[in-house]
């Protein structure tokens, strides 16, 4: 396999930016979380690619921890979303703007 390493990194970056764009544009809290997942996933690709480049396991190990962290965060975040949605009935991110200024 002879793919330029830059292509892989670029793929990861592309995915990362797409995730960020998703988080920026979407008003749906769940979609924002999906954007974050995409970003974390992109970092996983970069890690694995790096691991391949340097021929060692650290990157892969890190990917595992990123996944763990992603899972943990998503769990808490979804719980919070459920919690607030239960109270206000809305998952529109921008409706939560009591605090500002």
């Amino acid at each position, binding site marked *: *396999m*002879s*793919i*330029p*390493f830059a*292509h*892989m*990194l*670029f*793929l990861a*970056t*592309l*995915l990362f*930016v*797409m*995730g*960020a*764009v*998703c988080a*920026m544009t*979407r*008003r*749906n809290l769940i*979609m924002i*979380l*999906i954007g974050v997942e*995409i970003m974390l*996933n992109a970092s*996983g*690709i970069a890690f*694995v690619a790096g*691991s*391949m*480049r340097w*021929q060692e*396991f*650290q990157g*892969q*190990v890190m*990917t*595992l*921890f990123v*996944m*763990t*962290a*992603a*899972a*943990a*965060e*998503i*769990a*808490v975040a*979804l*719980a919070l979303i*459920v919690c607030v*949605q239960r109270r*206000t*009935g809305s*998952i*529109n991110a921008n409706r939560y703007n009591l605090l500002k200024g």
Partner: protein
Amino acid sequence: MTFFDIIFYITASVVVSSTALAITRKNAVHAVCFIVISFMGTAILFYLLGAPLLAALEVIIYAGGIMVLFVFVIMMTKMEKPPVVKSSLSSQWIPAVILGSTCIIMAGILVFSDSGKWLSPPAVTGTPKDFGIVLFQDYWLAVEIASFLLLMAMIGALYLGRRKAYDPPEEKIQEKNVI
């Protein structure tokens, strides 16, 4: 260009396009479906890049666990209608796309100017055994920490998600007093 290369590029394009579709879906369930496709593609990439265990975990944790969680939550929350105001679309997307493309251009400049290294076979293959040895010998501390992370996430999610008998009514959000 080898066969693997072709598969790589095809998979990559699938991943990118499904992600692009995912982030633009109005319906969250559709988005989740596309994202699952994207994650599947990622798993293939992982496999191609010599991480079969991660490929499996990707499918199990991401595509299987997390996305199902999403679907559950989507089901639990009664989705409100998306805002009718159409103008918000451009005001939402245009700056984001500009920012995103600028970002990609910049990052692309940096990435492609990296003194181009080619990944050369044979790539190491992270067999579960090798992987486990590294993980539990060199990184046991991190594993322990990750376990605490999961414990906290569990407790936090439990605490936040638990329905209380005296959940306050909705109008409380209008309250002016900051506590």
